[in-house]
């Protein structure tokens, strides 16, 4: 696709998003599973639990399930040109949909399993990156084929938990692996390590305010920050590093606010660009085992998925919390996608 067409598509999505100014500019989709108290998933036994998989927030703030009743989705990516084109990182591999989630095709074959993350290059939306337990696969044909692109990754230590495309430059991608953070600037033709870790890098995020600013969480090295687009990284003082951190998020409504989720520490927030941090667990159920957090880019609302408890939301960035439902759930991701209006993607919503 030509650059003009891509630019046009991006512009269209932006205009469409603006057109929805009366409502949220982003869709929120939860990747969630439900557990019977005692241990089994809702798909294992015919129990009166909601279906697992994708739950999408509607205009009335109610959530509706779509896609398969399936217990493990790690992320969902949507083609910025076409809201009907979806890619889901699932236990089976990558699931691809071209009809807004009504039907799916397992895009990968037997030799790829349990992808941890999936993302689309917004400047080259035919290019999709898939983080795998044993490396990375990259599709350059909208999910039809998934060749591995691992030159520069180590033979071992390339377990990949997170992959994120730099929105400022096509083909520039960061990957969070067992042995550190890796960077490609040529669409995964080659990689180089930009930061070493003792254990897995669990999340990578790019600031919505400053494309050069990136944050990462790790199991072993605390929280990390890069001010140069991911070329170099520094540890963020004030964030504990003795236990694993699970994910991190920017607040799109306030450039100085970030939040970290951790099984051990619960929710950690900063409101001064990372200079000082606070635990924000008052009001969360104990133990505050936060498996995933998300920050609504429309309003700064903070969501916390507390493991096998429920989803909680905070309107004051963690000072107080209230239940947002999803009892007995494990949330693997809070996915915020720019909203398209009046498209088939929303047809399944009430």
């Amino acid at each position: 696709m030509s650059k003009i067409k891509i630019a046009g598509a991006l512009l269209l999505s932006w205009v469409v998003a603006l057109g929805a100014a009366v409502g949220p500019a982003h869709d929120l989709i939860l990747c969630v599973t439900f557990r019977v108290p005692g241990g089994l998933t809702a798909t294992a036994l015919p129990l009166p639990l909601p279906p697992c998989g994708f739950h999408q927030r509607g205009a009335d703030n109610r959530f509706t399930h779509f896609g398969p009743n399936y217990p493990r989705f790690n992320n969902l990516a949507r083609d910025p040109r076409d809201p009907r084109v979806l890619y889901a990182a699932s236990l089976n591999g990558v699931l691809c949909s071209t009809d807004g989630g009504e039907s799916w095709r397992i895009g990968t074959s037997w030799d790829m399993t349990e992808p941890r993350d999936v993302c689309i290059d917004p400047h080259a939306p035919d290019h999709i990156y898939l983080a795998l337990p044993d490396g990375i696969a990259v599709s350059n044909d909208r999910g039809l084929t998934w060749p591995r692109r691992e030159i520069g990754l180590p033979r071992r230590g390339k377990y990949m938990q997170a992959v994120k495309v730099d929105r400022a430059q096509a083909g520039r991608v960061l990957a969070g692996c067992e042995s550190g953070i890796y960077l490609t600037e040529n669409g995964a033709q080659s990689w180089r390590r930009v930061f070493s870790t003792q254990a897995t890098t669990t999340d990578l995020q790019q600031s919505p305010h400053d494309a050069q600013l990136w944050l990462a969480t790790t199991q072993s090295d605390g929280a990390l920050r890069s001010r140069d687009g991911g070329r170099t990284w520094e540890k963020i003082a004030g964030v504990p590093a003795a236990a694993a951190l699970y994910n991190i998020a920017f607040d799109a409504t306030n450039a100085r606010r970030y939040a970290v989720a951790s099984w051990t520490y619960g929710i950690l927030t900063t409101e001064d660009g990372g200079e000082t941090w606070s635990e924000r667990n008052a009001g969360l159920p104990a133990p505050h085992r936060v498996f995933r957090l998300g920050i609504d880019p429309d309003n700064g609302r903070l969501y916390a998925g507390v493991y096998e408890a429920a989803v909680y939301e905070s309107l004051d960035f963690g000072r107080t919390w209230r239940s947002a439902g999803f009892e007995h759930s494990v949330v693997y991701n809070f996915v915020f996608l720019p909203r398209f209006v009046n498209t088939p993607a929303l047809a399944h919503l009430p």
Partner: protein
Amino acid sequence: MIARRLLIASFALGCALVSSAQPAFVGPAPARTILPTPELQRAAYLARIDEILAWRSSQAKPGELFPEMTMIATKLALHQDAELCSRSVIQLMKTPASGPFWMFPTVNVAFLGRDQLSLEARQAIRKAWSREMQMRGDTENHWAMYYTSLYLMAELYPNEPGSSWYSGKSSADNLAEAREYLIDWMNLATTVGQGEFNPTHYIGEYAIPMLYLATWAKDPAMRLRGKMTLDWIFADLAENTLNGVLHGANARTDDVSVIERGKALASFFSWVLFGNVPPIISYGGWGLYFATVAKNYELPEVIYRIAVDRPSDYVQRDFKRTRRRWRNSDVLMAPIYKTNYTRRDYAVGSYQGGLADPIQTHVWDVTWDVRDPRGVHNTMFSMHPVSSSYDLQTYFSELPDQMAKEVTKEGKASYDSPDKFLGGSRFEQVFQDLDTVIALYDIPVGTRFPHINGFFSKDLVQLTVDPSGWIFAQGGSCYLAYRPLAAYQLRPVALIKSSMTGERASLGDQQLFSPHLKNGTIVQAAAVSEFKDFAAFQAAIRALPLSFQLVTKPTVTFQTLRGKVVTCTFGAAPIVNGQPFDYTTWKLFEGPYLNAEKGSGRLTITHGALERILDFKTLSITDRVKP
């Protein structure tokens, strides 16, 4: 890890079947008679299958729909109640489940019912395969079941578009993917080594799909591959059983069968194939899925003979591999060097230590023969109980903190228990020479559960704590000498009765608890018949030269009862009679019964003059009777 939950649901279903009037389970232990001809062996095999089908069929409640798939499959196998089977299928297909444990029973019914089920029932099955996304799982046994099921269904419904399959792929694409996986897996297992080797209950997850493939694949080559893989699995079972009881080492077992060795699904397979041990309750549930198709399998006499007719003691050395390691390892799959020494009265089995599987590994034991294994805890071993997110993350693509919690709730109830007897450890190193085992432990400070557990069965007799430091005992016709290398306590332990629920029971067994990080165990076994009496055995053991130190790296030098001087140092190669022991020369199989070179894909199965060669490279089976 998530797919494991599906196993639990299915396993629970199987175990929920009741044992009423199950003849072989409630009857006396089978006579140890070697049936002399293939015809008699076959007739006995068929009779056992008939027993299973008759038992399950008799449990149907008149006029009621069949509530689950084993009953439908049984009725179809017997060509009974087709109309009721159809209505039951239609009902069950209204709520299809997801995953390989739903897929293969459905394949069973779909194929058995091809000419019996109504069109509406067959369409209900087909529709379920169209709309319900099937989980592939995350384990080798999951994939064997998943891809065999997908392969067979894609053959059954060819030329259909992706829109008619849950996968979104056409029949041809599903078939190609499944075929490619199955061939790749068979190549891996027959050249590099089996992954989930000698499993006490996962054997069903391999044997059942391979039987289906051997029976129903349209492609003759795939049928043959299924048949050859089945022979391979059963030859391995035969060689690793002691009168039908599968002993250690096991890539995967469970809390119950690691102790009561006969209470394993493997015993069902020994019973149905060899007739030399009682089956477990309800034929293990899973056995029913095998039985409905089992008449299509012909057990080669050479495998039967290996299981039931052993003229002398033997050593078999095998090369296997671990589960895939996603992290924390220099290799994707680490080598396993497995030793099996089997005598008339006992067997000693081991591999070199470490984790073949993150949760259910069993590294070594001595298992003694009992005439009737039901209720008998006929084994002795020690182990380091591991509960470690590091180890779980090595094998699972998960975040660290929730895994131990999830594992304990999903059918591995003992995982985080300090007094468990299930599991391997990176901090255990084992060497076996014939019936001597030396296990050394070097556990880092700060490790959860910094102790080792030795298992002392309620069924041991003459248990004697000797001032020499040895503990002597007798199990069946086997004398046992157990030497803890560090201070310990022998204390009563309540064993886990169910891996699913974690329910425990005190039956009289004891735990040898030794809370020392640098530690070790020596076990020397011998036959009762070798000694005048128990005192003579003890005297012989006391006379064996032994030296050890645990201050730095645990080190032992021991002269075995069989006259070899063995030095083991944690982290170093064992030394036997002054020579470093070299594992690198090991073949895929080497012994009197099974032989294969690494990379060959060619297994020679031998018993006396009988020989069968399974050659996956030429895709051929060659039988001969040697002169």
